[in-house]
């Protein structure tokens, strides 16, 4: 019962986010995020209907939806990285490198070994979700650490999306770790409450953060001085830094 209340609340919040985005005409600014919300809403509704008319398929479809959402969260992380650095040509690809770099390393060293380990399926699923949630959480922290290092201003919308996702991922990590340790049977009542609750908390954060379009303070484009015009493009300037540094160090 609690699950269905949480699902209904989640659908309501998701619909609110979509409506506000449509009213503010900023759906296209966060295309992956709103695609995620649409998918979340559509599959949630289908799941609800399946529960009412064919409950024997509910569990299978629940887990199918769950795993597709786990994958879609990764796309959200990629979009957050793109938004953080998109106004800075030299850092445009940094978000992708950080995201795919950490994801690749963690997949090879942390997720894959757990996948190939022989154990019951339910334990393997719990472990897989826990590890993927932790990986995405670490990527988020790394992205914002890089943004902080370069003093990149973070807009309210992107900050809200990241905060909601981080909260959701953190609760997921702890919840799935506890379920794995205590055992699915004994932990089931708490697990069934905390999971949907984390989704509601995340959606509330997103609703507040995306109530209106607020990209944050945009960096000002300064009028190029003569010196800057002479010095050429950013690529040339970065290249000169590299060349000058190497020449000095070779002396």
């Amino acid at each position, binding site marked *: 019962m609690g699950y269905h209340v949480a699902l209904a609340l989640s659908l309501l919040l998701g619909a609110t986010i979509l409506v506000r985005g449509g009213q503010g005409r900023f759906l296209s600014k966060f295309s992956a995020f709103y695609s995620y919300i649409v998918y979340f809403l559509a599959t949630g509704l289908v799941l609800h209907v399946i529960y009412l008319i064919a409950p024997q398929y509910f569990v299978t479809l629940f887990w199918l939806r769950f795993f597709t959402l786990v994958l879609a969260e990764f796309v959200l992380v990629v979009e957050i990285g793109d938004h953080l650095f998109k106004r800075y040509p030299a850092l445009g690809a940094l978000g992708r490198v950080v995201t795919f770099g950490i994801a690749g390393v963690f997949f090879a060293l942390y997720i894959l070994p757990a996948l190939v380990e022989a154990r019951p399926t339910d334990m393997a699923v719990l472990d897989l979700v826990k590890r993927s949630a932790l990986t995405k959480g670490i990527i988020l922290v790394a992205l914002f650490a890089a943004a902080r290092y370069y003093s990149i201003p973070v807009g309210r919308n992107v900050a809200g999306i990241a905060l909601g996702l981080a909260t959701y991922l*953190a609760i997921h990590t702890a919840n799935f770790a506890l379920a794995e340790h205590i055992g699915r049977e004994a932990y089931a009542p708490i697990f069934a409450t905390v999971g949907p609750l984390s989704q509601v908390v995340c959606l509330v954060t997103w609703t507040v953060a995306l109530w209106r379009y607020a990209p944050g303070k945009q960096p*000002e484009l300064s009028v190029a001085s003569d010196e800057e015009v002479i010095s050429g493009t950013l690529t040339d*300037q970065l290249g000169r830094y*590299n060349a000058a540094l*190497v020449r000095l160090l070779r*002396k």
Partner: protein
Amino acid sequence: MTAVLIYSVFALLIIFGVVFLIRSRRAEAIPHAEVSRRGPGAFWEGPDLALAERIFDRTDYLWLRDDVGFPTLAESLLRSRRQIALNWLRAVRKSFDKLIRTPGPAPGAHDPTSAPESWDLLRLLLRFHLVLGYAIVVVRLFGPYHRLVPSLGWMPALFEPTAAREPYDSTNVPRSS
């Protein structure tokens, strides 16, 4: 139980880490308009380059130690030059990071990495940090008079870009008079 505790700590670190990084960034909004005002070439032009070359030039040290015969004074000079060299390298990094923050025109809804130069810029960024990090370690461990790039001649692709591909080759860098 230990694993659960570790994962719970990681979960808390993720939430507080993101909150901390978002909040601290907002509090320290920087005036982007000031970026690059002085011009990024300051570190390899005129007096600045002469200063840098002086820092990494071992002539004074050798003169004090071998010609004049003051090894203690020479060691003292070495120590102070090491600190100056480290400060100079850090200043170069700061200046480079300011240049990196030069904003571009607002992109559309398209992928920010779709521009062909974005990966080239990132390569230069990573290369600079790699070389600078290496230099800081060498200066810290062996001092500024150690040959900093002793055995990287076998990496011509990295350290000697061809003129055709990279017009900013070191031979184009103006030297001080």
